[in-house]
């Protein structure tokens, strides 16, 4: 289980304090208005931001002392996930071995990861030769190949068209169920949340103001910020 307990971060113009629990193998949709602190929450879990106080654990083990590379966390961003001078296979291989000197078993793992995101046959392509959806699949394959139990997806599909976006979210859902991976993902549309998320965390003004099953959060909370997100406020 991922546990975030009163993790506080302070900047001159922004303060955040997060508390959240996500079950192992669950898909937690992080939603909320722009500038509310969704990305900061994901960056804190990944280790790019260090809280001044609070606790952050995964399956009982504290993540706070660990640098980003040592955390059992993989992350996919909205853009710039791939290095443009490397092929799709090399970009995936970085998740296993940054030196790119792979063993035969690791090469097989890379091929399997690309296969899992339905990109077999495109191993030798460079990012410039791929569509936006294909590039995000490569990034997802890299997250999978590292076998880290927690994957963070920071608005990974928001630049894709609606059909492709739903397809990618469906792929993530299928993969995490098959591999029992915990996923924390920022999502913009309530329909997507309702379709795939086990849990929803509504983030606004630097804190998780509501958390639980999506239906309950979206229907039961009487907060104008949630109403505005659903288009009913």
């Amino acid at each position, binding site marked *: 289980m991922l546990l975030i307990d009163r993790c506080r971060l302070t900047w001159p113009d922004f303060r955040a304090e997060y508390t959240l629990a996500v079950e192992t193998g669950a898909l937690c949709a992080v939603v909320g208005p722009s500038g509310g602190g969704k990305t900061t929450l994901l*960056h804190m879990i*990944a*280790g*790019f931001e260090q809280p001044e106080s609070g606790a952050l654990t995964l399956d009982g083990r504290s993540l706070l002392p660990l*640098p*980003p*590379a*040592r*955390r059992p*966390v*993989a*992350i996919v*961003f*909205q*853009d*710039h*996930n791939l*290095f*443009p*001078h*490397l092929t799709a296979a090399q970009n995936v291989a*970085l*998740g296993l071995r*940054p*030196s790119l000197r792979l063993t035969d078993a690791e090469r097989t793992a890379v091929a399997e990861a690309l296969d899992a995101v339905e990109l077999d046959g495109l191993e030798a392509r460079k990012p410039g030769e791929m569509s936006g959806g294909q590039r995000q699949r490569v990034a997802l394959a890299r997250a999978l190949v590292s076998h880290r139990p927690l994957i963070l997806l920071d608005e990974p599909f928001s630049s894709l068209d609606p059909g492709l976006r739903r397809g990618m979210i469906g792929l993530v859902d299928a993969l995490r169920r098959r591999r029992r991976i915990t996923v924390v993902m920022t999502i913009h549309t309530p329909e997507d949340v309702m379709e795939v998320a086990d849990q929803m965390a509504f983030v606004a003004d630097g804190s998780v103001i509501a958390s639980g099953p999506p239906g309950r959060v979206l229907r039961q909370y009487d907060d104008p910020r949630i109403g505005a997100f659903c288009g009913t406020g």
Partner: protein
Amino acid sequence: MRSLSHPGSLVALAILALVVGGFATLVLAGGEKPALLAIGPYLVRVLIFSTVQAALSSLLSLVFGAALALALARRRFPGRNLVVSALGLTMVMPTIVAVFAVLAVYGRSGWLAAGLHGIGIPVEISIFGYPGILIAHVFLNAPFVARIMLDALNTVPAEQWRLAQTLGFSPAQILRHLDWPALRGEVPGLAGLVFLVCFKSFAIVLALGGGPARATLEVAIYEALKIDLDFGRAAWLAFIQTALCLALTLALNWAIARPPAAQTVRALAVRPDRTDRGLLAWDSLVLVLGLLFLAPPFLSVLAGLAHVAAVLDADFARAFATSIVIAALAALMACLMALALGGAARRFRLAARMPRLAALYDALPNTLLAVPPFALTAGLFLAIRPFVDPATAGYILLPLINGLGALPFAYRFIGPRIMIAGERYGRLSASLGLRGLDRLKIMDWPILARPLGAAFALAMALSFGDFGVVALFGGTELQTLPYLLYERLGAYRLEEASSIGLLIVLVSFVLALLSGRLSHAAD
């Protein structure tokens, strides 16, 4: 039939007519002899020297500049922003001032010799020839290279730095996957540009070359015109230089024509290699060496502050006023030409849908980098000599040639912005019926005002410190500040030279800073 008439077309034709007419006059004045065979061995010597010194200067500037850029990208220290700003300013450091600075530090009686003598090592230092030329070229170009490369390194998206953190990249892997891909795109363009600048180097080679045995084509043209009055030889040398530089300029255009770098959407992330101890030691060494190499010449110019009062005489006032007027006229011409050419390029690209023709207008300013200013000036001087006296000719030709020289830089500010104004608001303006001055006022001016200011200030800075064409016309009747500095250097009046150099640098730097401010605020 789409109309090709546009003020920009007239300007383009006028520029071509000036260049072709200038060279044709020079050839005709050269008389009957096709002198290429006669100057063969001399030409080969000049070409070899020009190429070798330019290649060495480029290599050293690139290596030193890249090391400085990487060190600055990785480190934060008090005064770093000042250092980064100073790097960009060497672009407008007048070459004649750089000559003075190099002599003041590394010359026979410079600071280095004095320091060595002071600690009991009486070494006879002579920097004339390759050492002086390379030091001056690297002093001027390595900071510029570092600045451009630092900008390139800053375009690595923040997301990729975070990925590097997550994936646990080592310093070598960061260099391979993040730094090098960002720098690689800049290397061909920068190498070509620095090579071109050094290949055409004039003031530095003239003053530090140590004699006629070491001449670039530009110096050889100057010597043919000013000393030997051999117009035929000058014309041949000019043709060869134009052909070589044109080829290089075209290659440069090709090298620079690449997709724009990815822009990061958030503030820069922390570089994970910043904590590596080996890199910290290396970066410290690079920064200290950079400081030791770059700071003394700057300080030698600053030392001129002590003697400023001694140079503020009538000669100085006249030269200062002349420089300002010539620089302002040159900048005005450069901006007007850039506006006209940019307007034509926009019209042919957007309205007439003739992108290839538009590309020719875009390329014209850069091709002027290939034209040797001395040969062009001499040809134009010969053409107008029957109508005006030599002193007046100088006042006409200096702003014109300096304006043409500044055009490529002015166009880089203005050309793209004119296109942006058209792309964003062209259809809207057409639908609203905006034309002529109304269109200029409402559509173009808000987007162009600051880039125009930036272009004007930079063009003025480049012209103000220029010691090129004035070497042909300079004398008692026409004196600019750089010419006055050259005279004082020639008379070994180094204290006065340092003060004049300081004042030239101050004016150039203020103008360049103004240009930078205006260009950064352009968006």
